[in-house]
């Protein structure tokens, strides 16, 4: 048996396939298509301290090989999640990643305390949500802010902390370094690129929020580049994401430097996408005689 296990900040995932926050709810829906025991980890929908309604619809637009979304963190609040959804998720072998988003540093700290006391396996600090007015992406595009949020969260955290980075920056390596210096145990990237689509008939944006986050295969080259840059800049493990739709894409991201790979938008194209990526990765290892999936991590040979 080939080794599929990877380690993210001390937490062992049985395989490197993760589902991306916000695309997979709390796992119940896709769990009707295949067993959640198949996955390495599940990053749950972004949580806020209190229940959030999110943005008005339309919240999605299609673009060439991508989508824009402006959900705006609709969620039941962190306490409701822990009471109602976490017990469901903890039945499975997949690790649970609580994705948290705050409007203020106090929010982040408070949520960190709450999820630290729960059965969640890892905390993913979303400092890169482009779909909320207050906070959100603003925390993730400035090194000093990154430092502040992450330092504060780390002080309160009793679980490993993954910091989720925004791609809407000029120097992703600098942001990554700030996060790691402030104590991030792992990084995940990329969140969505800010985009817009206009309906030329109505002359109005498709999204009621005007702008939204771009994801899907279209952004994969940007994601791969950023993962590579970050892997060269810091030592902590990376969860790579952005347009992964097939096993080959997961291999590409691992070669670029990711220790695990998340599947997001591809779930919408095919409810079995994450499962197919996982199975395809196993086949890839077999066909290429690779005994340990970790051999792929960062194995790209640049010119």
């Amino acid at each position, binding site marked *: 048996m080939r080794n599929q296990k990877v380690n993210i900040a001390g937490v062992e995932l049985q395989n490197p396939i993760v589902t991306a926050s916000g*695309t997979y709810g709390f796992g119940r*829906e896709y769990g009707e298509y295949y067993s959640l025991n198949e996955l390495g980890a599940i990053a749950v929908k972004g949580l806020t301290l209190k229940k959030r*309604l999110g943005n008005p619809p339309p*919240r*999605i637009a299609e673009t060439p*090989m991508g989508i824009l979304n402006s959900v705006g963190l609709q969620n039941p609040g962190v306490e409701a999640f822990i009471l109602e959804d976490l017990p469901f998720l903890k039945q499975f072998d997949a690790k649970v990643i609580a994705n948290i988003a705050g409007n203020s540093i106090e929010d982040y700290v408070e949520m960190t305390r709450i999820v630290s006391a729960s059965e969640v396996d890892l905390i993913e600090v979303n400092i890169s949500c482009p779909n909320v007015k207050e906070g959100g992406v603003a925390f993730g595009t400035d090194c000093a802010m990154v430092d502040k949020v992450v330092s504060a969260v780390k002080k309160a955290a009793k679980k490993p902390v993954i910091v989720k980075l925004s791609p809407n920056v000029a120097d992703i390596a600098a942001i990554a370094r700030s996060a790691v210096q402030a104590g991030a145990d792992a990084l995940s990237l990329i969140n969505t690129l800010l985009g817009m689509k206009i309906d030329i008939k109505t002359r109005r944006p498709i999204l009621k929020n005007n702008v939204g986050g771009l994801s899907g295969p279209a952004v994969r080259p940007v994601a791969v580049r950023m993962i590579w840059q970050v892997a060269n800049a810091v030592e902590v493990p990376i969860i790579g994401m952005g347009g992964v739709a097939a096993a080959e894409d997961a291999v590409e991201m691992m070669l670029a430097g990711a220790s695990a790979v998340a599947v997001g938008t591809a779930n919408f194209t095919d409810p079995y996408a994450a499962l197919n990526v996982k199975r395809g990765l196993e086949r890839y290892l077999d066909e290429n005689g690779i005994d340990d999936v970790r051999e792929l991590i960062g194995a790209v040979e640049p010119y």
Partner: protein
Amino acid sequence: MRQICKIVKKEFLTPDIVDLRFYSQEIAAACFPGQFVHILCSPAQVLRRPISICDVEGGAVRVLFEVRGGGTEYLSRLEPGDAIDVLGPVGNGFSDVPRGERALFVGGGIGIFPLLMPARRCDKTPSVILGFRDISRVVLVDDFRKLSCNLSVMSDNGSFGERGFVTDKMAEILRRGEADRVYACGPKAMLKAVAELAAQYSLPCEVSMEERMGCGIGACLVCACAVRRANGERDYVHVCKDGPVFDASEVDFDA
């Protein structure tokens, strides 16, 4: 359920509206009126397209769709024998008409498609009102004629059936006390008017809502529909999983 299904029949009913049948014993057997299928149209697209189930015939599922953009355009060029990737049946459909009750079905434009199946399944003769922009868009009327129902057909300009809005006719029928409950599908403005009329007569009313979708199964939360909870609080439910059919009294049509 996700299946690769063979197209068994395709016909253009108007230059824009396609009648498509694909084979899926499983979906045909499992589906309820008002549910939809989520179809992956083109390999160059990331999102599926929600299309209401119009009817089932043996192991075939029938859908009617209007060519709007890239997805439906691609779908309209497929031919019998071609395969499509179908997720479904998904969503919550219309509730069964209780025995003995007279249902009124109100459909506008492409909103008439999901009404055929539930109208057929009534034990008491239902009323059906179909509304079209004009004669060039009239489809499926013969299928409704074959049911035992009291059929009214309206067009905005009178070029087919009666001139007027479906709600004009609906008001008549309700005034005459000929309906115990209302089911509607169509443009949001129409649904709002239908819901208000039904409320005036204190009739239960179910409406099928449209919203742009991602996953189609309730995981991504993009297909939000504003509702007002009993306590007056605003909330969002989701068209793909909680709907597309909702109790009209809950929906916040002005959100």
